[in-house]
């Protein structure tokens, strides 16, 4: 066998049957093919851009944008640059993503717990709600909520008056705007001190418990330190916040803080949509913890609450966190649907109006895609860090 001549007819099959050589060949072919294809696309793009006389440059970012954005956290006007419009868009996306993540987590955990309720009626109500919300497209929820706000809420003249300072209208939700006096820094200082104290106290309580078995009520002490103490300081310093209450002018409210209908619709729809998924994740996570764990904790004499907080929840979190991460990512990506109702996020600013005004499709879309990739990576990294912290420590 080994003396068989290496003629052309047997060489090829032989090389093909050698696993190492074959894998190298396959990879070389794949690389050549894929890079060739990409090079072809890029070449076409250059030729086409050349033909249109556009070139590829980002100088347009410093031209005047000439459009208005009604919700901006940094100074912005129609005379600002496209770059600044992009920054406003990024901030708006971040705002709705962060607010959405907070609200959807709260609502989601409540739904998950209701789904575990022994009460048949509550359980089925939560089930119906979850099934309805998650089987309907999120875009539809956004449009529905927006439609209800714009079409069904009253005009500012007949605003729904909540508590003489907050008004619900179809132009948005008007609330008093806080203006901080210098003394307010004192309250913030107390809050920071309380937070530092809480962190130290948690460590200390853990050490004492490890050494002596004595238990401190960390939760209540913490609550006092970060909420009670600042509240006390606030009243002690003579309430150093003045409220700028919105006042009805001829057509609209003036002053105060306005939460616009677009933001409200996007925020509520995204949060409640994502919450229905989080609810199911929480329920699955908690039911996945073996019931023996609860029984063992009860047998050790832990109270019901401590069984939950020390035994069940830490184990459930390990199951909950990875799918929760992907829900947060989904929420952030779904915030791009803002464009359907005219909320000015990344897609609507740089990928929408700026793109149409300057005709720089390629450059604008590359920015938008990169921004979302970075955002996704950041959220993944944060949640992975948290997941590693709570992970089961194995040998």
């Amino acid at each position, binding site marked *: 066998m080994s003396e068989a001549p290496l003629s052309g007819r047997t060489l090829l099959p032989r090389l093909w049957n050698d696993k190492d050589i074959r894998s190298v060949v396959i990879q070389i072919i794949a690389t050549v093919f894929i890079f060739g294809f990409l090079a072809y696309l890029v070449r076409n793009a250059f030729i086409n851009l050349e033909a249109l006389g556009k070139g590829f440059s980002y100088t347009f970012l410093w031209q005047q944008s000439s459009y208005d954005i009604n919700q901006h956290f940094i100074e912005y006007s129609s005379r600002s640059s496209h770059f600044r419009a992009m920054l406003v868009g990024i901030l708006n996306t971040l705002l709705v993503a962060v607010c959405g993540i907070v609200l959807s987590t709260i609502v989601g955990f409540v739904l998950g717990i209701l789904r575990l309720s022994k009460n048949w*009626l509550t359980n089925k109500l939560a089930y119906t709600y979850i099934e309805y919300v998650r*089987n*309907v497209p999120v875009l539809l929820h956004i449009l529905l909520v927006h439609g209800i706000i714009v079409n069904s809420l009253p005009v500012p003249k007949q605003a729904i008056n909540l508590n003489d300072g907050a008004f619900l209208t179809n132009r948005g939700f008007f609330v008093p705007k806080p203006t901080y006096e210098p003394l307010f820094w004192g309250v913030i200082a107390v809050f920071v001190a309380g937070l530092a104290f809480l962190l130290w106290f948690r460590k200390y309580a853990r050490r004492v418990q490890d050494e002596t078995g004595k238990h401190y009520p960390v939760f209540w002490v913490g609550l006092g330190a970060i909420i009670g103490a600042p509240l006390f300081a606030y009243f002690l310093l003579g309430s150093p916040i003045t409220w700028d209450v919105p006042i009805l002018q001829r057509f609209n409210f003036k002053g105060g803080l306005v939460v616009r209908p677009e933001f409200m619709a996007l925020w509520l729809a995204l949060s409640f949509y994502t919450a229905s998924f989080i609810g199911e994740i929480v329920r699955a996570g908690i039911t996945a913890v073996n019931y023996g764990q609860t029984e063992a904790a009860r047998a050790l004499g832990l109270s019901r609450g401590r069984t939950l907080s020390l035994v069940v929840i830490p184990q459930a979190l390990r199951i909950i966190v990875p799918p929760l991460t992907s829900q947060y990512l989904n929420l952030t990506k*779904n915030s791009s649907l803002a464009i359907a109702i005219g909320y000015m996020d990344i*897609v609507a600013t740089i990928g929408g109006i700026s*793109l149409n005004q300057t005709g720089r499709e390629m450059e604008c879309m590359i920015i938008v895609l990169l921004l979302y990739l970075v955002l996704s990576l950041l959220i993944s990294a944060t949640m992975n860090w948290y997941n590693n912290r709570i992970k089961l420590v194995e040998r």
Partner: protein
Amino acid sequence: MTEMAGTPYKPGEHPDLPPPANTIGPIAWIRQNLLSSPSNIVMTAVSIWLLYTIIPPVLDWMFFDAAFTGANRNECRARVGGACWAFINERFSLFTYGFYPIQERWRVDLSFILLVAALIPVLYDGLPLRKFGLYFSASFPLLAGWLLLGGLGLEPVETDKFGGFMLTFVIGVTGIAFSLPIGILLALGRQSELPIIRIFCVVFIEFMRGVPLITLLFVASIMLNYFLPKGITFDLLLRVLIMVTLFASAYMAEVIRGGLQAITRGQIEAADVLGLKYWQSMRLVVLPQALKISIPGIVNTFIGLYKDTTLVIIIGLLDPLGIGRSSLADTKWTGLSTEVYLFVAVFFFISCFGMARYSLYLENKLQTEHSR
């Protein structure tokens, strides 16, 4: 005590007593499930109060106070205070077929009937001659494509006439049919021992999962022409179909990778020992087990894709939501957004809930381990 120790028990002497009355029947059920503890009673009360405040007004609005006929919005609103379904009534064919030519609509109906016929052998395995049924299912996309697009003896119809529920079905079914095989290939590529193949698959999957579908649709609608040689252009619907399929297949790949990782190394080694080649061992040993585990995830991805078809309205295709939105611009019917969106929501709910239920049924059927 004395009795037990005393007289011996004779079989049949003491007939079985019925269970205590307070542990069976509806009353016991209510006591156990609704009123077992003070907190439980409070929850029941709150739930009933919620139902009482929500259900009657909603029912009134949707049915009892609603207008089902009327020529325009004001006529609707003048008579009753509830929903105005007359609008949906008037536009129903638009919602179903979009702008598909009226005399050719039988082709859409026929494709839909064939779709149902093609789904039966796929979804239900107790059929006689199922094998031939599956051949028919496999050829369905071609057949439907011919029916809807025309050509070869049928009047050609441009894809910009597609719309309504029909468009949802076209995008949804195409995406579902093609994203599964592509997803399987991507998942295998990501698990491959060949580093370069693995890197390509990882980059593709992570890129697709990292950006929103809407930006990809923008790319498809405004940028794709730049990447093609001059003069060559293809249909917007086709571009959307490709993007939606690629997007869904990246998610599909991750779901299937989860299933692949759950298969123990021993299975692959056993297949190697039996002399199976790579593709044989994947097809006969690994994938059947991996796909079975990933069924819930796969169906969830299908549902996600199906719901995502609504996003095409943002680049100007007219799915039911798009039809509804453009109809709302008609001055005869302004301000009826709630009715339109609820109508479309019901359609999506029925489709997606149905898929989820089927997935549960399939999971139970394929469950070969002993249930606990």
